[in-house]
């Protein structure tokens, strides 16, 4: 009896109990789907973070008041912000820092004509756009001259442009930000969403304009700094920390009341988190596969009992023990392989759905699929051996007389 005819026979037997066969595969389906989905989502998240971080600009450091550099928590209240004086000091003293920019931001209502939108309004010095490598799609960026004069001008993100001007060219038009009028001089290139936030829902004006008209004082919410080279990032970080410790009178040994962050740390953190989650899910998947295997064994044992007479007939007309063993082993293997295939399908579909919902890239995990499939086939063989052996060792006469 060839393997092909065994497979055909097994398929016919499984078809007779379609519902039961499908339910039996459920454990395998869940196990495989978990692996595939986790792999797809983990890779998607990593790719997404990588993309988001590269969108921030190269060699970038992000200096915020308050939080210790060991945490990614929000800025603590009551901690003094930075000043332009701090920036000047860094500019003068930190040799590994290239571009530098002051920034402060608030969510404010922007009004143009009959439209209005609460958006992220930021005052930034011109270096900001260099560091973030962010140019305009139309018009121009604020210049040093605008900064010096605290000119009432602004550049807007794509979303704001769409919302306030509905497809019209906004350049030259006036937007009132919290009752402060400013003229649109440029529309920024589209950046898309990152970390759940729309990066095009922004309005930038010169830092000086923002400070004087909207805040009423020299308050730098955060500093962006670019190291002069990728391998100088850590050095730049040390220099900035040292300068700010001195200026903010942090005694040696005390924890800093500000943090110099490297966005790549987020990537490293995410890798750790993904690793932990993958290990956890691999455990769950492993348990699920074992449970699924036991389910297959159970159903195969039931099937052997139900079909004892059939086995008796086959033995009587000359089937060898090996033929019967092959028949049931192939059946168990097809069952688990089927579960593996369904699981891959479910996992991919699930990952696709989640990727759509949380807006991360959808990645088909290349290696995980054949591995998961292979494991499910092995589970079928492993757990199918016992029932198949039991079937093959039946006594022909006893099997024939079995009711």
């Amino acid at each position, binding site marked *: *009896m060839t393997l092909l*005819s065994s497979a055909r026979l097994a398929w016919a037997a499984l078809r*007779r109990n379609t519902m039961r066969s499908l339910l039996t595969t459920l454990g395998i389906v869940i196990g495989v789907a978990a692996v595939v989905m986790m792999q797809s989502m983990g890779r998607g998240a990593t790719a997404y973070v990588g993309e988001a971080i590269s969108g921030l600009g190269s060699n970038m450091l992000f200096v915020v008041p308050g939080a210790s550099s060991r945490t990614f928590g929000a800025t603590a209240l009551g901690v003094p912000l930075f000043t332009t004086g701090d920036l000047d000091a860094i500019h003068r003293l930190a040799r590994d820092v290239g571009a530098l920019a002051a920034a402060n931001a608030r969510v404010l209502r922007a009004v143009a004509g009959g439209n209005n939108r609460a958006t992220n309004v930021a005052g930034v010095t011109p270096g900001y756009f260099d560091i973030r490598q962010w140019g305009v799609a139309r018009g121009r960026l604020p210049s040093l001259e605008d900064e010096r004069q605290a000119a009432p001008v602004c550049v807007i993100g794509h979303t704001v442009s769409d919302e306030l001007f509905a497809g019209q060219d906004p350049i030259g038009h006036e937007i009132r930000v919290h009752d402060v009028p400013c003229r649109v001089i440029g529309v920024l290139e589209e950046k898309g969403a990152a970390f759940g936030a729309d990066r095009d829902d922004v309005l930038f004006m010169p830092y000086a304009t923002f400070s004087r008209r909207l805040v009423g004082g020299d308050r730098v919410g955060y500093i962006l700094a670019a190291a002069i080279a990728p391998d100088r990032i850590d050095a730049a970080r040390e220099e900035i920390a040292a300068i700010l410790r001195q200026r903010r009178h942090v005694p040696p040994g005390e924890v800093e009341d500000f943090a110099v962050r490297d966005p790549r740390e987020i990537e490293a953190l995410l890798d750790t988190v993904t690793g932990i989650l993958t290990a956890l899910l691999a455990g769950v998947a492993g348990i699920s596969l074992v449970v699924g295997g036991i389910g297959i064994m159970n159903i195969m044992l039931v099937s052997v009992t139900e079909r004892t*007479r*059939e086995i*008796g*007939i*086959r*033995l*009587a*007309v*000359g*089937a*060898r*023990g*090996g*033929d019967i063993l092959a028949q049931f082993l192939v059946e168990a293997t097809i069952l688990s392989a089927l579960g593996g295939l369904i699981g891959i399908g479910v996992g991919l579909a699930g990952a696709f759905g989640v990727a759509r919902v949380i807006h991360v890239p959808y990645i088909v995990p290349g290696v995980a699929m054949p591995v998961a499939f292979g494991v499910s086939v092995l589970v079928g063989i492993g757990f199918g051996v016992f029932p198949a052996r039991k079937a093959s060792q039946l*006594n*022909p*006469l006893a099997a*024939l007389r079995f009711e």
Partner: protein
Amino acid sequence: MCSVSKVYGEQLSAVQALDHVGLDVAQGEFVAITGPSGSGKSTMMSIIGLLELPSDGEYRIEGVPVQDLSRDVLAALRNARFGFVFQTFNLLPRTSALENVELPLVYAGIGARERARRARAALAAVGLAGREDARSNQLSGGEQQRVAIARALVNDPEVILADEPTGNLDSKMGKEIMQLLARLNRERSITILIVTHDPNCAAYAERQVVFRDGRIIADSRTASP
């Protein structure tokens, strides 16, 4: 084929189905084994058909003792030399007549095309040409038994063993089945052993062996009909 003496004692649980029975069957014979229930005739049949081995004594096929043969060799012998017909037909359910008849050929390792050809021929020989695709549960009892005979026949066996082949059929169909078996015996000189307690069936055979309490109490021949 000349089958030689076989003696069998069932020691387990003090039930002695067969008590040192000796029986020779020569090739081409048509033997009816009769006797009351529990006399050991079905057990005898199972041993002859290699479905089980004697617990004591010796069974030889063409002079070769079978008790030392492996399960696989016994299976191959069943496949090549014996055909079985049972009281309850024992066809695979939800399976076509053709596939049922092909079954022994599958295990004989014969290719699909040749299998189908021989199975069709066997079905035609039992008068079921045209019913190849009927599922076993769509067939009448007599038809099912004829499919079973075709299955027993398809491997060109030397012996057909029929255990109460008419037990589940009405007398008319039973007669047809017996005539069919007698014809196969006559035309193909297949050795036929039937177990029955119906004297009308036994009358088709040329030799009657009567069992009682695990022993042979009579072994007589009648002239061929």
